[in-house]
């Protein structure tokens, strides 16, 4: 059974269609990424999943429990950080955790609090007021409160915002560890490289719709790739290749870039050799997720600026 399913979920605010017929499922132990430009509806969708916003249409189920009709059962499986992990700065970290533990109805709360505090590495500082914490420590406290109730689904909205590179790396490792332990994680991020490194599957949102939903590896492999070829005379090489119907261009000094899939590369090399172009190196230019993402969203960019989805959802 999927940990999280969204079926035909839409949200209209006023006359604006913020989220438009979103369908998705997150499987156990999977890290699922939400990717999209600002205003694509990521945050609105995430807020609907954690019960902060009521969907206008469609159903959201966590472990089979509908979030609108069976809120308590659904949310008892969810831990979340929604944007910045705001906790009560006038309380200590322990008081914060006691607060959330009471609401989650956790048995043996004391022991569980010690466990999560150890897990996120806040031992020793747990009785300090949160206002004396650094941003990184607050983030860890945010993770601690999200993990407190041993959720089946961890929802993280822009979790690495404001973290330094070491913190991001640490965070990424923690997420992967949690997923290996069977927890499902839903992450949204504007850092494409982050999603690429953290997630198993990714949904790309644009104007409130999911325009692509694939495994990260297929997204990287499946798009048109290219070959980068180091040659003696790049202009001559491009001319020769264009005569033979190749899609080639000068990429840098002595480097040309030819759009092709891997199987055509031997023929490409033969063509160059016949034209007496010296080849120094041939390497596949595997496109990153970022390029794939831009490619997927690029042709719609012009129209998206006029669609009414901007702003609200990402606030």
């Amino acid at each position: 059974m999927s940990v999280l399913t969204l079926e035909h979920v839409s949200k209209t605010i006023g006359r604006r269609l913020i989220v438009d017929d979103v369908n998705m499922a997150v499987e156990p132990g999977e890290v699922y990424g939400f990717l999209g430009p600002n205003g694509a509806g990521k945050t609105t969708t995430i807020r609907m999943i954690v019960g902060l916003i009521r969907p206008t249409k469609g159903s959201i189920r966590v472990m089979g429990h509908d979030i609108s009709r069976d809120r308590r059962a659904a949310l008892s499986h969810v831990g979340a950080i929604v944007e910045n992990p705001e906790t009560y700065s006038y309380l200590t970290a322990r008081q914060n955790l006691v607060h959330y533990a009471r609401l989650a109805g956790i048995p043996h709360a004391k022991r569980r609090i010690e466990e999560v505090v150890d897990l996120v590495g806040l031992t020793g500082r747990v009785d300090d007021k949160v206002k004396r914490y650094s941003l990184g420590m607050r983030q860890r406290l945010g993770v601690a409160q999200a993990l407190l109730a041993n959720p089946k689904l961890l929802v993280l909205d822009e979790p690495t915002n404001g973290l330094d590179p070491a913190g991001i790396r640490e965070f990424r490792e923690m997420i992967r560890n949690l997923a290996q332990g069977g927890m499902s994680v839903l992450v949204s991020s504007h850092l494409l490289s982050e999603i690429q490194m953290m997630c198993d599957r990714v949904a790309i949102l644009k104007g409130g719709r999911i325009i692509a939903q694939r495994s990260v590896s297929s997204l990287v492999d499946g798009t048109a790739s290219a070959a980068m070829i180091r040659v003696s005379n790049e202009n001559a090489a491009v001319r020769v290749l264009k005569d033979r119907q190749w899609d080639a261009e000068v990429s840098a000094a002595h480097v040309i870039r030819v759009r092709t899939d891997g199987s055509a590369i031997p023929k490409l090399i033969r063509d160059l050799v016949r034209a007496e172009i010296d080849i120094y190196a041939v390497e596949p230019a595997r496109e990153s997720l970022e390029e794939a993402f831009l490619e997927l969203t690029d042709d719609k960019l012009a129209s998206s600026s006029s669609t009414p989805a901007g702003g609200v959802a990402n606030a």
Partner: protein
Amino acid sequence: MLELASVFANEWMKLMRRKRMWVAAVLGAFVVGLFALSTYHDHQEQLRYNSPSAWQQQVATLKQDIAQQKAQKMTDQTKAQIQADNQQIKSLQGQIAAYQNGNENWRQNVRDEITQTKQDEKMAAAEHDSTTMSMDQGSLLRLNYQLAHDVPPLVPGEQSAYQEFTSFISVATQIFLPLLAVILVADMVSGETTSGTIKLLLIRPVSRFKILFGKWLASMAATAALTVAVCVALLLVGCGILGTGGAKLPELVGTRYTFVQQPQQSGQVVNTGPAQLDPVAHYAHTLILPEWQFVVYGILLTTLAMLVVATIAFLCSALFKSAMASTAVALGVVIIGGISVSFVHSKVVVALFPTHLNLFSNWTGALAEQLKMSVTLTTGLVVLAAWGIVCLIASLLYFTRKDVLNA
């Protein structure tokens, strides 16, 4: 039930650790200090002009005046003056005697007063002056109570801490105490919206209804605690300065009032202005309470009124996203409301909550006399309850439905 208790425990923990709690407590202490200062000052004045030595001096002055009048040519005017002076001297000497023997002859004095009042009442009846008649009836109830329950009046010059308290409360309930309630409660929800913590609060497996209701309960508990603490402190300070005298003196509560147009008396200029209404008291439902009991019940009633103010502030905190805005609006409602009620002369004010914040005056009938309408304690309680319930339901309805879009 258990969930609600958890929410309450959480909200109480947060409430007690917020800065606002301390701001409210310090302001409360400031109000008590203000009361102490003004009571002490009044008391010193009172001692200066209302002590045996002051009275002796007045007697001496009066005697001088009599001597002066006698030196002049006797006219009706000077005769009347001398008679008045003599009466005043007699009363002053009575005061001095009472002061010196500690009210030994109070029973006789009360009996004399009863006789006098009964005569007044008869005269008023002859003139069909129902206002004066009913006032005299009230005085008789008080005087008879004193005799029946063996309660001597205050020694001349003595002030009652209970009366000082109730008169200060009538000011405090209009501005000071509502201010404290607003400061304490007006950001209960909006504070969390402003800081963003509302998001992590509302994603728990607890219904929004319970979260908000728990918040409301914690607000009510804190408001009640603060109001009672300030009232008790005021009373203790009053008793500390003025002593505990007068605790058993009677207070009439629950008196009903009707209003009549007084008959034109002969020789009076015909009144062409708006009809002058005079109160007539009816004592069928009147209770006679000793002052201390009146004050204890009064503190409870004041607390109830402050709970309603706090509920209005609570609604503001649920409606507005910014803590600043909700506090400002709640303050505006309470302060502007309080001021405008005293300006507007319309029947509408009966339905407004600031009219009934000083439930002491509803109970004694002072409010009825002021509004020239038959307003009782029950009226006040019903109006306040209506405001409280409507505001609570409105905040619950709004809060359980709203989308948390940007917090």
